[in-house]
C-alpha cells in the first residue's frame, strides 16, 4: 500500500477543483457549506483509506454526494431557480478552460453539466439531485452541451 500523503497535500492539489465543482452543482452561496462537509468527511475517513491511487476521484465522489445531500435536504424539489438566477451574475467557476463558459449557462443547464462532467453522475442521479425527471435532466444536459458547442465554435 502506498503511504497516505499528508492531508494538506490533498487540499493544495484539489481544493480549488472541488470548490469549482460544488459552485457549479449547488451555486456559489451554498458551495462553501458543501466544501466544508466534503473535506471534513474526507478527513474523518482518511486514515483508513486503502486505495490511494485516485485521491482526486475520491474527493470528487464525496463532493458529489454532499451536493446531492444538499439538494435533497432542500426538499426534493427543483433547484430554486429564482435564487440561482440572481447568483449566476457572479462567476461560479474561476480560471481557464471550459468552466467559465459553463458559468454563462442558465442555472439548470449549468448544474446538469457540472453534475455530469465534473461529478461524473449518471442521468438518474442528476435528475434526483435537480428534483426533475430523468428526461428533463437529459434535456437540460443536452441543451447545455449544445450551447457550449455553439460558444466554442
Amino acid at each position: 500500500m502506498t503511504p497516505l500523503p499528508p492531508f494538506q497535500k490533498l487540499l493544495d492539489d484539489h481544493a480549488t477543483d472541488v470548490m469549482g465543482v460544488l459552485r457549479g452543482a449547488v451555486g456559489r452561496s451554498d458551495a462553501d457549506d458543501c466544501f466544508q462537509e466534503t473535506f471534513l468527511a474526507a478527513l474523518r475517513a482518511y486514515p483508513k483509506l486503502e486505495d490511494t491511487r485516485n485521491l482526486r476521484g475520491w474527493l470528487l465522489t464525496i463532493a458529489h454526494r454532499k451536493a446531492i445531500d444538499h439538494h435533497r435536504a432542500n426538499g426534493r424539489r427543483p433547484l430554486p431557480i429564482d435564487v440561482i438566477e440572481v447568483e449566476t451574475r457572479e462567476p461560479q467557476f474561476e480560471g481557464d478552460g471550459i468552466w467559465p463558459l459553463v458559468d454563462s449557462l442558465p442555472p439548470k443547464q449549468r448544474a446538469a453539466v457540472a453534475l455530469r462532467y465534473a461529478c461524473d453522475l449518471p442521468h438518474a442521479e442528476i435528475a434526483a439531485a435537480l428534483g426533475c425527471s430523468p428526461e428533463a435532466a437529459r434535456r437540460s444536459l443536452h441543451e447545455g452541451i449544445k450551447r457550449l458547442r455553439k460558444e466554442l465554435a
Partner: protein
Amino acid sequence: MKASLQRLTERAETEGLLNVAYANVDSPFGSLLLASTPRGLVRVNLPAYDPEETLEELAAKVSPRVLEAPAKLDEVRRELDLYFEGKLTEFDLPIDWQLTRGFRGKVQRAINRIPYGQTRTYMDMARSAGNERAVRAAGTACGSNPIPIVVPCHRVLRSGGGLGGYGGGLPMKEALLKLEGVL
C-alpha cells in the same frame, strides 16, 4: 478560498480531526518547519532537510491528518524568535515525545535538561540515559533528535572539546553555541 480553508482548519480542530498542525517559519538559519499535536511540539525540521519529506514522515508515523495551521504554532514561533534574539534562555513549551523511543528517548529527555549556555559530552549523555558505555548510541540519539533547537542537542559536544556533529550543519551548531555565549 482562503477563508474556506481557514474555516475548515478550525472545524477540523473542533472535531478532533487536526492531528498534526504545521507551519513554515523564518529563522536566522533559513526556513524551519514546526509541527505540533494536541499534546505539544512534536517536530522541528531544520533548513538542511527537505520539509516535504518531514511532512510525509509525520503522516506515516503520527497521523495522515496533517494540516497547515500556522496559528497553532504561534507560541512556538514566538519563543523561537526570542531565543534567536538572545532574549529567552528556557523554552516553556509542551513537548510531544512520541517520535522518540527507548534508549534514544532517554538520551533526548536528558538533552532537554541541559541548561542554556552549558555543554555536555556524548559520554555524559550516555551516562544520563543509564548506560555510560553506549557513547556511540548516545551520539546517534543526538543526531536523531526530532525537536532540535528546542531540545538543545547543539549543547552536546565530543569529549576533549571537538564540536562533534550536527544535523543542521556544523556552522549552525557553532552559531547557536555562540549565541548562548559558550564559544
